[in-house]
């Protein structure tokens, strides 16, 4: 889209920046990535009162231009790098009117970069309610920039803000805040001189950040380093001095422009809520109750739409099979591509519901309290208070949970959370566990109320959580983190969730999942389809010929014949050959080649296991007919020993394998997407496979 003006939105977290962004751009926005980093880049378009179009870029929320995380480092790079194609013509700084003091620190920093600035004074409605009186005209006059009072949630003042954007000057007119040069006079003068800079604050920022900035050359960076040594510049001391100077300026500024009553009303309401929600005893109980409710809802509410999607695909596949002439192309399209697509689509309801909950928890401010309550416990095992939600979400599906780890600022904590989340028992493992447990665990009660099968299933769930925590504890000592772990975090005031934001988040996450993970899953599904549908040499023709002989047609019903052909073809397909080939490797775990085939076909998605078992034991219908699969598996015997295949040892060994193995292409794809480095999914796949093999081996030999 052609744009006349590029506007960047800058502000502290929790100032209503994304609400303002949504209000300015409507749904006319797109989410991409800033080059080279996994930070969401939201851009949108806004028509100004004079008919021009402004491109609005939403920059990550930050408290200062000195970055504490990778997300925050984007802000300075985009504002300062004149060669960056995203460099804005105008910066709109959002200030929370109820918390002006801390918000103004970032304003003074950005203003000193001498980029044209407009201030959006947000949450004016709340400020009024709390009795905070702001003399906006005097405030604007003192800053020397347009100050527009807005209430983004209510849509108030948006017209004025758009007008201010269209009237904004091309040159920066803001008043000086602090004497920047006084912080490091010789160094700033020398850097400005050598790099031909006309802005002392830009020169000072380069002195602080030159090592991490990509837009200056290594020679320039090296030269700045030399100069710093020459003038004995100490980055942290200079930052401390700058921050104190800025707050002095801010205190002077606020002295005669803002009147704040002794206790803010809104905050005391928030405090009352906190007394209950972070209560020593009830706080944890309420949290567990909320988690259980989330967990239940994800399962309960998604069951029907998931069934609908799956049935819909089956219907489309069946119809296409009738419509299209049978052949390899139709098979590839209908069974390979559509089959793979249905495997992706069925997870949409779970993803959407999980993200609805997460966005409500974040919007209301409760997520910050969860972090606050759980931090001590999670820190012990190398995780972070914010890791709780992804781990619990992992019971539904690891894919949206891994996407939700973005709320964890600390890089190391986030990586560990991503690495262990797939260990938690996801819903795709459930059918496998149910099938195997009901096969070997007797359906009777112990200690009056506990059902043995239920206990076994619960045991698998608890075991998965324990293994995730143990692995996290190990990784804590393995992964090297460069960022120091802080927990200096704002506890925002409780707010009502914005429902359109919740809806948008559901839509956006589901879309991202389908487009990003979908590509990989479909590719792998197609490969697996080819492996299962074709065999080496003329084996398939021989099977066809064999079953064309009249004695088969006489002794078997047509559908029985078809199933016999299918079963024998699967055994002789490339997947079957592979199953035989890996048998020596999986023998120590108690698995035969038939289980080997199921391991291979469920390589991309665990839930395929049951379907493959059904095909191998050539049962009627499809995976839904679980009882009949069970019956066949129960009576299956080893042709060599005559013993049953699925003993207690084999079933539990198999469950251990599925508990640990990374049999999920979607997760691999999403881990790559979130870490932007194949190292992480590769490492994860490797460690999980090793654990799977070891756990299966131990369990098989222990129970045998």
């Amino acid at each position, binding site marked *: 889209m052609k744009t006349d003006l590029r506007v960047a939105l800058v502000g502290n977290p929790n100032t209503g920046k994304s609400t303002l962004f949504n209000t300015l751009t409507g749904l006319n926005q797109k989410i991409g990535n800033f080059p080279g980093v996994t930070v969401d880049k939201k851009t949108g378009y806004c028509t100004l009162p004079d008919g021009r179009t402004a491109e609005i870029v939403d920059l990550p929320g930050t408290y200062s231009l*000195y970055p504490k995380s990778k997300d925050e480092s984007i802000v300075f790079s985009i504002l300062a790098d004149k060669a960056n194609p995203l460099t804005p013509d105008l910066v709109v700084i959002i200030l929370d009117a109820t918390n002006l*003091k801390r918000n103004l620190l970032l304003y003074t920093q950005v203003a000193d970069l001498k980029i044209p600035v407009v201030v959006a004074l947000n949450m004016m409605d709340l400020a009024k309610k709390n009795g905070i009186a702001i003399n906006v005209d005097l405030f604007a006059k003192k800053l020397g920039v347009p100050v527009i009072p807005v209430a983004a949630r209510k849509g108030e003042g948006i017209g004025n803000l758009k007008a201010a954007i269209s009237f904004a000057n091309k040159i920066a007119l803001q008043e000086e805040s602090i004497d920047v040069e006084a912080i490091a006079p010789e160094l700033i003068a020398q850097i400005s001189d050598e790099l031909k800079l006309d802005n002392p604050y830009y020169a000072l920022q380069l002195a602080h950040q030159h090592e991490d900035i990509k837009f200056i050359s290594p020679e320039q960076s090296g030269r700045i380093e030399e100069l710093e040594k020459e003038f004995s510049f100490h980055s942290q001391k200079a930052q401390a001095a700058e921050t104190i100077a800025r707050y002095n300026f801010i205190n002077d500024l606020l002295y005669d422009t803002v009147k704040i009553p002794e206790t803010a009303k809104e905050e005391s309401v928030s405090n009352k809520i906190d007394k209950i929600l972070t209560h020593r005893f009830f706080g944890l109980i309420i949290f567990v109750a909320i988690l259980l409710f989330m967990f239940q809802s994800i399962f309960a509410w998604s069951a029907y739409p998931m069934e609908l999607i799956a049935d819909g695909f089956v219907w489309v596949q069946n119809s296409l099979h009738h419509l299209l002439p049978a052949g390899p192309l139709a098979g590839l399209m209908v069974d390979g591509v559509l089959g793979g697509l249905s495997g992706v689509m069925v997870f949409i309801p779970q993803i959407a519901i999980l993200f609805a909950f997460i966005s409500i928890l974040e919007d209301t401010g409760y997520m910050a309290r969860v972090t606050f309550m759980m931090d001590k416990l999670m820190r012990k095992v190398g995780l972070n208070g914010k890791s709780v939600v992804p781990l619990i979400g992992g019971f539904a599906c690891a894919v949206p949970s891994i996407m939700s780890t973005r709320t964890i600022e600390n890089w190391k904590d986030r990586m560990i959370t991503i690495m262990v989340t797939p260990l938690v028992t996801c819903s795709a493992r459930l059918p496998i566990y149910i099938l195997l447990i009901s096969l070997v665990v007797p359906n009777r009660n112990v200690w009056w109320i506990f059902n043995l099968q239920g206990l076994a299933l619960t045991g698998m769930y608890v075991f998965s959580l324990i293994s995730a925590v143990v692995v996290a504890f190990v990784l804590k000592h393995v992964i090297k983190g460069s960022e120091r772990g802080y927990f200096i975090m*704002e506890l925002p005031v409780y707010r009502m969730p914005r429902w359109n934001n919740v809806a948008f988040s559901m839509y956006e996450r589901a879309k991202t999942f389908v487009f990003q993970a979908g590509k990989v899953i479909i590719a792998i599904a197609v490969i697996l389809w080819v492996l299962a549908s074709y065999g080496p040499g003329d084996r398939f023709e021989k099977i066809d010929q064999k079953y064309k002989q009249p004695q088969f047609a006489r002794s078997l019903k047509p559908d029985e014949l078809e199933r016999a052909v299918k079963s024998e073809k699967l055994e002789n397909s490339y997947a079957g050959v592979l199953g035989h080939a890996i048998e020596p490797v999986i023998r120590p775990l108690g698995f035969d080649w038939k289980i080997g085939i199921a391991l291979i076909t469920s390589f991309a998605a665990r839930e395929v296991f049951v379907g493959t078992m059904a095909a191998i034991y050539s049962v009627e219908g499809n995976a839904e007919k679980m009882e009949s699969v069970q019956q066949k598996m129960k009576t299956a015997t080893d042709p060599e020993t005559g013993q049953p295949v699925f003993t207690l040892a084999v079933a539990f060994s198999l469950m251990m394998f599925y508990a640990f193995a990374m049999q999920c292409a979607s997760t691999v794809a999403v881990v790559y997407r979130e870490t932007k480095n194949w190292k992480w999914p590769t490492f994860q796949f490797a460690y999980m496979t090793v654990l799977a093999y070891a756990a299966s081996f131990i369990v098989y030999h222990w129970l045998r």
Partner: protein
Amino acid sequence: MTLSELKKGVVGVVKEFTDLEMSVKLMEMGCLPGEKITIARIAPLGDPIAVNVSGYQLSLRKFEASTIILQ
């Protein structure tokens, strides 16, 4: 006395910091020398704590609070 030793609800005034790196972050968040500070609540497991400072609520670990010296 440090912030980690302050009693809940008692008003303290920030004097200085013992950890330079931490102090930069704390000051950016509005926790500056001369600011009034009170402990609003303690997490159910005893750590971290939530403090009122500069007109809003900030949470920090006890270790981080122990680097803040009060007047």
